[in-house]
């Protein structure tokens, strides 16, 4: 089957503004969109730039906009689209484009770093493992599926409106540590995100949940954080 790919192009060394370039390619229903991009690059245009690595949805490199929706290029097959012969491919929104489909993810990872994404527990560790209830581990399990592809944050309308908002991905990582029974920094973690740039920035619009390629209920996890903030407030009064 012949498919057409209309791809967003921008080369900072040449272009003053972005443009769209059309490629056509013989495709099979089981081809991944990433396979198609690779073939365009190998067979037609070696200058096309995009990120990729594992090619099966675990490294998180290749989130992009395919026919108007944020997807992982390696996790979507030709057959997954109703308009199977026409594709428009664009870089993730929200971030600055570096070249073609490659965006500058530094602001995303800056926010990630900001929420202190590591276990904080100053008590002496036992000789063997710290015990943790299986239910507690299962409670944070959805957040462990996160591959830091930035789809949720790129989709989030609040992130687009408020550049200081932590964004769903960073808050999801916050959830992962807040609810881990081995973490001892609940108070200071909550204090850090109890603001309109933090968890209250979330207006429960579900876009993050909708686009998450790993099926993580991001909005729900953020809701758990909000509930925890309220509970702790009540405890104090």
């Amino acid at each position, binding site marked *: 089957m012949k498919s057409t790919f209309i791809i967003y192009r921008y080369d900072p060394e040449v272009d003053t503004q972005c443009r769209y370039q059309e490629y056509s390619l013989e495709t099979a229903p089981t081809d991944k969109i990433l396979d198609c991009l690779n073939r365009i690059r190998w067979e037609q245009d070696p200058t096309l730039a995009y990120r990729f690595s594992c090619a099966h949805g675990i490294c998180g490199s290749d989130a992009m906009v395919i026919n108007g929706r944020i997807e992982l290029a390696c996790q979507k097959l030709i057959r997954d689209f109703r308009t199977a012969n026409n594709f428009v491919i664009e870089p993730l929104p929200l971030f600055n484009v570096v070249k073609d489909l490659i965006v500058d993810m530094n602001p995303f990872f800056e926010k990630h770093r900001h929420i202190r*994404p590591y276990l904080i527990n100053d008590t002496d560790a036992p000789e063997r493992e*710290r015990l943790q209830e299986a239910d507690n581990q299962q409670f944070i399990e959805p957040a462990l599926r996160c591959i830091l592809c930035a789809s949720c944050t790129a989709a989030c309308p609040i992130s687009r409106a408020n550049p200081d908002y932590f964004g769903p991905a960073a808050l999801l990582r916050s959830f992962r540590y807040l609810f881990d029974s081995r973490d001892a920094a609940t108070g200071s973690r909550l204090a850090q995100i109890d603001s309109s740039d933090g968890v209250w920035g979330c207006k429960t619009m579900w876009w993050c949940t909708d686009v998450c390629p790993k099926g993580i209920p991001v909005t729900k996890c953020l809701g758990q954080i909000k509930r925890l903030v309220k509970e702790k407030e009540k405890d104090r009064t």
Partner: protein
Amino acid sequence: MNHQYDVVIVGSGLAGLRAAIELGEDTRTAIISKVFATRSHSGAAQGGIGAALGNEEEDHWKWHMFDTVKGSDYLGDQDAIEILTRDAPRTIFELEHMGVPFNRTDDGKIAQRAFGGHTSNFGKAAIKRACYAADRTGRVILDTLWEKCLQRGIDFFNEYQIMNLTVRDGQCCGVTAYELATGELHHFHSKSVLLATGGAGKIYRTSSNAFASTGDGMAIAFRAGAALEDMEFVQFHPTGIYKLGILISEAVRGEGGILRNNEGERFMERYAPTIKDLAPRDMVSRCILREIQSGKGIEGKDYVFLDLTHLGKDLIASKLGEISGFARTYAGVDVNKEPIPVQPTCHYMMGGIATDTDSRVKIDDQNQTIAGLYAAGECACVSVHGANRLGCNSLLDVLVFGRRAGRSMRRYIHTIGLPSLAGDDPTAETAEQIAKLMNSTGKERSNIIRTEMQAIMMDNVSVFRHKDALRKVMDKLSLLKERCQNISIQDKGRCFNRDLLDAMEITYMLDLAEAITLGALNRVESRGAHFREDYPDRDDQNWLVHSLFRYAGQEPPQFLTKPVTITDFEPKERKY
């Protein structure tokens, strides 16, 4: 641009990150990686990490050691395997203390499950030894260690491609790297360098490996004088998704999944009566292909079924969520209702840069080293995996030996000052290489050469091998190497020039493919993952030795051997 550090680590997978943590806050450490750190291929490890914790049933490190030795088909060095398995429980507890979210038992301990080739009491029955976090164990460890490094403030240079090692008077004192976003060359001047660059599975057509797994570190070290070891031992994981090679974890069989042929028969019962589907990977891969050869592939094609329909929705959802998604997305299969079509896929390099147990890189069979140069993880060969790696021993390897690399570099850097580079420009050689490539008017394209290499390696140097085919492959590879001289780069830009990267990667892979094939040709026996149709038996008399390869430019590598270290377990027939 020039940088100065005590230690430069190349590769941001688990070996590199673990080494960085071990180096401590008082060591100036840089990690450079061709991909952003969390994209490293360690994150694709699914099933688990082995350690004799005994949380689910009685276990001892010595049993783990025996299984690893036997799994290696007695080629693994037993002193190194003892270090690996003895240090395993400590390694797991340390990960847990750092925050790794392992699945738990009902009493709150780290949960464990069965895995291929892991047994109790020296081979009596399968044992639960693999610690896991669902089927995304590598990913959660990668995230945890990366975040630990963020906390430590370690300097990451993401999307920097290593180009050359700087070696002066037998001492490694830095690396030259190419910044993908700008095309700028950087020199990292350091007292010590760790290569933790992972595997080279992209040498083969069907592979579970990431696009980044092109063996850059192995090839660069090889060219700089390091010896490669046991390269002919390439692991084909039995259960890649048909045609795609995407990994379906051994954890599926650890949790009770069953391989079936076109008659619905559980054929592994015939080949490995004691542990059946949990036999080691080399054996299961061969058995699958034997079934296919005897006409028992599904619909007469070259795949079999991996059946988990009897495991139950709850178990699948809580412990095998990731692979259920892969089967649904890529094979259109609902694992609760239908079996997954699978076939062997290139998965892991047992061979790599020859190192001692303190991760120092060796140059020959006399244990001479390149001062300051270290290697750990899949790119290295200690050797703990010998002729065949057991499942869930690779995460253990990268963490145990990544830590040891960090520890020995830490000792080393206190004994020397920053080596002098005496006024020369260490990036000059690399700049020349790049200019030559960029200005080449040759007619060859790297992707065509790569496709040809992947096809001949897959068809002739994978699970089954034969002298006649291997000879032809050697000739073909040398032709492909020649054709590489005529690759031209069509992308003339400096920003994310993937065309240039492809052209470099193919030369790395060809050097390694040549070592793999030469080893496969010279080793006239069958052992572990190396199976010669024309020499189907193991030959301990002549071949209980490691293969060593030394770089010889356009010529095929020089081939040497060195003895295997045997301490506790004398070689025996390998039956399961």
